């Protein structure tokens, strides 16, 4: 069965390693923070100027001067640091963030990503997404396998304006985990109960399947 948003976040959280500095995009990627394994420590970077983002505040802790990149009120953990937007993106552009997780409208087999604009419909701007995909050492995209019309979002070539080129290393969808390299989606895991045929059918880009494809370990 297709994963829920929470299950996608849970699977992505398995990619985290002890000591990682991580930037979680707005929306579904934010949920990953709820599934960080207790055996490791991870620091969250928020591109508006915070390293060491904590949970949402309790009502009495709300501080208008302390928000995340999604403009939600947050808290800071012990050992956090604040800095300017220039310093924050120096950190991101300079490749110091170990992992970035972000959503997308489309990705393609070249590792291109389209995530910020639907011409004529949704024109809000790229925010920090273009810097994040250009700068992070490792980029995981978190999204549903198909759009609401049932069309694949894993394409041969993106059709929407690009956020970045040749930058996505891995995608975790409600149906599968795939690595992207050498112009191809490489299936590595499937959602519990989802058939390889269904994944093949719903992946418009070049798909490579080899060896046993295990089921994702989510609860």
């Amino acid at each position, binding site marked *: 069965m297709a994963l829920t948003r929470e299950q996608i976040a849970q699977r992505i959280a398995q990619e985290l390693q002890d000591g990682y500095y991580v930037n979680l995009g707005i929306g579904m990627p934010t949920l990953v923070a709820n599934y960080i394994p207790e055996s490791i420590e991870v620091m969250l970077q928020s591109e508006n100027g915070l390293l060491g983002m904590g949970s949402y505040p309790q009502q009495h802790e709300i501080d208008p001067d302390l928000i995340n990149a999604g403009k939600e009120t947050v808290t800071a953990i012990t050992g956090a640091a604040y800095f300017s937007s220039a310093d924050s993106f*120096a950190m991101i552009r300079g490749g110091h963030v170990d992992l970035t997780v972000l959503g997308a409208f489309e990705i393609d087999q070249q590792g291109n990503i389209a995530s910020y604009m639907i011409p004529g419909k949704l024109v809000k701007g790229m925010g920090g997404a273009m810097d994040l995909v250009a700068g992070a050492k490792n980029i995981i995209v978190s999204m549903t396998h198909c759009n609401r019309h049932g069309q694949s979002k894993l394409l041969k070539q993106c059709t929407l304006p690009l956020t970045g080129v040749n930058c996505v290393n891995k995608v975790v969808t409600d149906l599968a985990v795939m690595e992207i390299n050498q112009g191809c989606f490489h299936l590595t895991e499937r959602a519990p109960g989802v058939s390889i045929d269904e994944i093949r059918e719903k992946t418009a880009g070049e798909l490579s399947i080899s060896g046993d494809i295990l089921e994702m370990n989510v609860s």
Partner: protein
Amino acid sequence: MAGFNKVVTSYDDALAGIKDGMTIMVGGFGLCGIPEGLIAQLQHLEAKELTCISNNAGVDGFGLGLLLEKRQIKTMIASYVGENRLFEKLFINKEMEVILTPQGTLAEKIRAGGAGIPAFYTATGYGTQVAQGKETREFNGRSYVLEPSLTADFSLVKAYKADTMGNLVFRKTAMNFNPMMATAGHITVAEVEEIVEPGELDPEHIHTPGIYVHRVIKGQFEKRIERATTID
């Protein structure tokens, strides 16, 4: 002898010299860390045909949204303009030019402007619409885009505290774009929560040295929250 006393006591004095057609930088991220009173004064002055450089464009009726209401902005340079119906309408109807700029590139263009660097290369935006019409170039096998720097006639920033000499400190994530913008304005005006005497700010903790700040005014802040989100 005025010396280094940068304090002004009226919003008229704070924005004296603003003219139609000027380029104005405005600090803040969303509604966090914006110079609320200076923006209201800008609306009050009815300066027109402005080029505004700010990460966002406020919301309907608050922040830079106030200037949109009066159609004071001709060109907007920003990274994210959502959460603002009037903005979308003006943008889609082409009543306003909008130059969408990646957030990190925007921050760096402003820093470069203040630091006397006319242009720099960044990988951000390579292969996207952002790079269209711009020079690109390879360094060590990777492709980069040449980005020119930005400066402004006026920079309007919000700080937590200033001393009378214009030294500034910011609070938490209300820092955001304010420090770079302070360096890139021909005239930089800081609206602050508290003005203290020189020596009360630790010299090692000053985020923006007074050399960048020309006027300081004590403001009143509503500090509206866009998305109050709690753990409860």
